[in-house]
């Protein structure tokens, strides 16, 4: 098409991407995080296949302590805890990312619109957001779930919708800063319409904080879904979901002797969120120059 002599070799954008990847791999936190999360993702996909026993199979061997046969012991219904831990990754790793995705898409759009347009729309949305955020998310979430009924879809939508204002707020703040840069009025002076300016001009420049925020939000999504499940409003029986296992067995703690039924699922949750946060930390160090 054009007769411009193109410089030989990869484009500057490709070089930049490769450098970012290399920098990420150099970050110890990122690598450790990826390993942990990677392991659980693997379990989410193949957990039932690699589990030594059927996670849902009940047996008479109730509340057995850890042994070579049952690495993590058995629970109240004689189910193998180890298999349940392996298989339990799936529920949380489908629901939380779905909710996060919903929140990111909706939140980014909302943040772009309120940050760029300002004015009445911004004011109203900000008021509403502040009002909603003055309640603890968990309380709001289970109130709505009780009202709408419990299902996976509801869970995803409720958590996604409740996280939207949080992401919108971060995006809005970034957009407010970008707006001050002269390329925005330059675009207006070309006759560009608002959607173009928001999505083609501004969005690429706020992508970095959005990515970091999304990774952090994913961690919180897991946090929230797990907490909701623990309260009985999340994932339902008989799923081997970790938080559900804790919900089932935590009253045994008072007796003190059946710790394995709750400790291992708890550690699983902890390791997953720590891994995610390590990834987020690694990304933020590299991307946010």
């Amino acid at each position, binding site marked *: 098409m054009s007769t411009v002599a193109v410089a030989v070799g990869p484009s500057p954008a490709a070089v930049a991407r490769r450098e970012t990847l290399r920098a990420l791999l150099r970050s110890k936190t990122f690598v450790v995080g990826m390993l942990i999360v990677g392991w659980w993702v693997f379990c989410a996909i193949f957990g039932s296949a690699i589990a030594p026993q059927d996670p849902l199979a009940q047996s008479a061997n109730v509340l057995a302590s850890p042994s070579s046969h049952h690495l993590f012991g058995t629970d109240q219904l004689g189910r193998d805890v180890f298999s349940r831990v392996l298989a339990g990754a799936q529920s949380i790793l489908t629901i939380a990312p779905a909710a996060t995705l919903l929140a990111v898409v909706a939140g980014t759009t909302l943040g772009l619109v309120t940050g760029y347009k300002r004015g009445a729309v911004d004011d109203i949305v900000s008021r509403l957001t502040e009002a909603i955020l003055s309640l603890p998310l968990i309380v709001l979430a289970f109130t709505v779930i009780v009202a709408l009924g419990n299902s996976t879809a509801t869970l995803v939508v409720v958590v996604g919708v409740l996280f939207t204002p949080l992401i919108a707020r971060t995006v809005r703040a970034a957009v407010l800063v970008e707006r001050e840069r002269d390329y925005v009025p330059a675009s207006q002076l070309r006759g560009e319409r608002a959607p173009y300016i928001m999505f083609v001009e501004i969005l690429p420049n706020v992508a970095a904080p959005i990515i970091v925020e999304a990774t952090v939000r994913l961690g919180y999504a897991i946090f929230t879904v797990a907490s909701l499940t623990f309260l009985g409003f999340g994932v339902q029986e008989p799923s081997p979901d970790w938080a559900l296992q804790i919900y089932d067995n935590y009253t045994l703690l008072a007796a003190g002797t059946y710790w394995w039924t709750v400790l291992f699922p708890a550690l699983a949750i902890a390791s997953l969120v720590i891994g995610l946060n*390590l990834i987020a*930390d690694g990304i933020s160090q590299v991307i946010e120059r």
Partner: protein
Amino acid sequence: MARFLFKRFILAVVTLLILSVIVFAVAQVLPGNVGRNVLGGFATQQSVNQLNHQLGVDRPVYVQYASWISKFVQGNLGTSLEYRVPVWSLLGPALLNSLKLAAVAFLLVVPLGIVGGVIAALRRGRLADRVITLSGLSLTAIPEFVSAIVLILVFGLWLRVLPVDATAPPGAGFLTQLRYLLLPSMALAMVLFGYIARMARAGTIEALDADYTRTAYLKGIRTRTVIRRHVLRNSLLPTIAVIATQTGYLIGGLVVIEKLFNYNGIGQRIYTAAQNKDFTMLQSGVLVIAIVYLSAMLIADILYSLLNPRIRTAGAA
């Protein structure tokens, strides 16, 4: 300054009003006929209607809302559908318990978080910084019930230094109560630590890199004095503003922790209200929480405006 505070106050009231509408609307969506829920499946339709009329739920929605709000403002939070007693008689003591728990958590985490963040900033890039930052980062996203379980196992069952139950025996003294509250507060505090430390760290770094810090050093002032007088004073200001917003998290965490420890707090109350479809308790309880949160924000605003000269002197020529 007065103007700033007045604006914030009005804003809080408006937010509260909007919230009350939202809460009321959501509570209304709770399925089921109220009277039927209370009396059960075997009661006659007539008695159900009678109860509904007595409770006033057959009136139009906005009338119910208006009635609720006006009574609320006067201190009448309604009657619990489940327990048939005034809502406040149950919420009051529960609120008090929760505030005690939250206070202990706060007292634990705020000093620790600030100190941790400041140290991390002063030793930027070095080991102490990485340790504090990463541990804060890791702890923050672990759900409270998870960390609580680990804490219970470690301190309560294996080391046996702290009681597993959060509720002290009746008539217990202040210190004993404190001891019982330690485990749950620690769980709550762990979540907040990372966030507060991160804010304190960021604020301190910004202050350390600022021009005015350079001026102070170049005047020949001792490092210790520069940190105290110039850096900390300015770095802690945004941190304080942020701490207040964390009360929201705190209260959310309360629900989970109270359930785990079977503690009679407001979180527990609201939770059971939702489960039992006790919507009078639910909507009043949620609104009470909102009031607590917004009050905390106002206090933070007052503190902030007292400490920030820009706001304090606004209006003065």
